[in-house]
């Protein structure tokens, strides 16, 4: 039994941690959030130079050949700095899907461009009615003389305004909620209409409208659902690792505050009622870390059903995230309500993580069906 990271993983963690500390301080992060693009092209180039954009890709495409553990190590540090650059959208989702089901030619052409930092991608799978159900797809793709054309709309597409290319889910056969009949397509940004807006965690998203948009089939026609489930799991692991970094940061900030803020002539951390609540948030964080490790072991070693562990992880991140940010704001009192303090921003990111790729209730339902039915 060994929960140590490898030397390489420690180096990766230290490298990301150093970047967040030295080059991504709070003022810089806020300036990026307020900018038109909501990300820094300069930082993206730094990520490329430091090799971070290559982490999950196989060596044959120029990647680092990293595992889920490597991604976790990186995302946890990103969480501490609330990094806004679209690592999830371009590398984990867009790049991840290419690596899973792209043709040899698609992989050989596109993955090296991602690794160099020259290609931004996005995964457009949500529809306005779909909520957390991956099979709820009404966008259609029909085969014509010159390949497929897509019609429909996708919403809340992460990195939707910055993307050069999209991977879009569309129905090639079947009815709205059918598991069979969903396919993935590569679609150029120039062939869609997009409308951008901003989320409370600083992310830039877009709704995209497809009107006879040409799409290149990615993977097997009509059989995309298992792939979509697979990529959702990868995304959730990355997001939960990010959440872990956020929780650690929130707990540390709050603990520090309770040790310095004085009321009634003493530090508020001296009150037993608050001490017990701080202990609860500490334990919530440790339990979340354990569940991240459990899911990682299941995914990388196949020691237990990884899907069950992933559902459990997302449930716990949701529950403990709400506890931790709720207490962080409450213990900071009025200060916790200010936009100026970073606490509220970490809280917003945790809420967005909770609702991305299935919320707590969704995953608990999946867990129940898998384990009890």
């Amino acid at each position, binding site marked *: 039994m060994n929960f140590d990271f490898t030397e390489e993983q420690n180096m990766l963690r230290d490298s990301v941690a150093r970047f967040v500390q030295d080059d991504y301080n709070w003022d810089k992060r806020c300036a990026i959030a307020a900018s038109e693009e909501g990300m820094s092209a300069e930082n993206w180039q730094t990520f490329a130079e430091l090799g971070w954009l290559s982490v999950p890709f196989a060596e044959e495409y120029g990647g680092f050949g990293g595992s889920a553990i490597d991604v976790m190590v990186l995302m946890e540090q990103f969480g501490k700095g609330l990094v806004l650059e679209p690592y999830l959208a371009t590398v984990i989702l867009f790049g991840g899907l290419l690596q899973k089901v792209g043709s040899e030619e698609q992989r050989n052409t596109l993955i090296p461009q991602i690794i160099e930092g020259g290609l931004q991608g996005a995964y457009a799978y949500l529809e306005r009615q779909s909520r957390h159900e991956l099979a709820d797809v009404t966008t259609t793709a029909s085969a014509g003389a010159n390949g497929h054309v897509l019609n429909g709309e996708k919403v809340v597409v992460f990195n939707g305004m910055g993307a050069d290319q999209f991977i879009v889910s569309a129905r090639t056969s079947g009815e709205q909620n059918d598991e069979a009949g969903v396919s993935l397509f590569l679609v150029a940004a120039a062939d869609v209409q997009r409308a951008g807006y901003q989320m409370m965690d600083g992310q830039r998203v877009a709704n995209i409208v497809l009107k006879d948009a040409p799409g290149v089939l990615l993977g097997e026609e009509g059989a995309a659902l298992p792939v979509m489930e697979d990529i959702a799991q990868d995304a959730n692991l990355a997001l939960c690792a990010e959440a872990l970094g956020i929780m650690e940061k929130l707990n540390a900030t709050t603990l520090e505050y309770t040790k310095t803020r004085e009321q009634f002539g003493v530090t508020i951390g001296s009150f037993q009622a608050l001490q017990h609540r701080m202990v609860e948030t500490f334990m919530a964080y440790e339990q979340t870390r354990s569940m991240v490790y459990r899911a990682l072991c299941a995914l990388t070693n196949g020691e237990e059903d990884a899907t069950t562990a992933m559902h459990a992880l997302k449930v716990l991140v949701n529950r403990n995230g709400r506890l931790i940010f709720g207490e962080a704001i409450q213990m900071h009192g009025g200060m*916790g309500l200010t936009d100026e303090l970073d606490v509220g921003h970490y809280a917003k990111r945790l809420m967005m993580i909770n609702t991305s790729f299935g919320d707590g209730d969704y995953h608990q339902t999946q867990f129940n069906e898998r384990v009890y039915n």
Partner: protein
Amino acid sequence: MHTQFTAEELAFREEVRAFYKEAHTPELVERFSNPATMKDAIIEWQRKLYDQGWVAPNWPKEYGGTGWTDTQRFIFDSERSAAGARGVIPFGLSMVAPVIYTFGNEEQKARFLPRILKSEDWWCQGYSEPGAGSDLAALKTRAVRDGDDYIVNGAKIWTTYAQYADWIFCLVRTSTEGKRQEGISFLLIDMTTPGIKVNPIHSIDNHHSLNEVEFNDVRVPVANRIGEENKGWTYAKALLAHERTGIAGVADSKRNLANLKKRAAAEVNGGRSLLSDPLFQKRLSDVEIELMALEFTELRVLATVASGGAPGAESSMLKIKGTEIQQALQELNMDLAAYYQGVLPTDLNAEQLGHEFGSDARQSFMYGRAATIYGGSNEVQKNIIAKAVLGL
């Protein structure tokens, strides 16, 4: 024991219902939601209530109150909420006015109360300070006597709508001797007095309602002090109890719950509505059951007050349970909005966005964090119950 309405009360309910339907127009609602038009719209709305004679149901009749029974007040508030209508801004009508008519002199009553009734003055509250939050008695803003004036120096924080206010009521320190609570006075300060500076505080709901108010050698006539010097804490405590009875927000929570159910029925996940989803049902009914109990807890407190008792530590319980329920409902609303819960105000309309309530859900969820902090944090309320009720 009964909670049935009489025929007169039912007729009153119809009258109130009709008033809200006619007076609380969609045009007003639109203007409430825009920061540029909000202040004028609120004043216009409060004047409609004034013209109807209903703007101050909690005041004694002699000063312009309605002379209603508690049941009528309960009906009035329930109908307001059912209509989705806005309540009045509390700082003047519900907070400083009771202090003025209870502890102020005749001159102060004549000067301030009619203007509050007609919404001619906008009031804000100057209690909390950077170093005095839960521990309010730690406040340091000094008022030093100079002839017929006090000279005020210090800073107040979390002052809601100070940017609109004509007047601020403040707790200030007039003595540093003896118990901390015994050196505090209650002052009414004209916001146009030289030396006052309002600094905006942007909050986590991406709005600006909170402020810091600085006082630098601000001259305040002694005539603007309520009651006796160094007795301000007593007056403020009486006022805080008033603040807490309204804070349960039962009527608004009932309306929010009803809206949640409608939305939950319309939101479909994989062919099943959220309202029929077992996990969502459990979370919803957990809140609904607490709210059912709280409605009667509030009625019990009202009944005690009606039979001559004062709202004391019971109002702390209303505040704690009421705000917990409000926050639980806001959280459910966020989950209903799913991935739209984070949407910031945008130029896209609801049709382009594909969603109706995501941004509102975000705003009320984020600002809703304040409810367990302001008006005496829930931790302080628990201290009050522990001490005053349980004798611990």
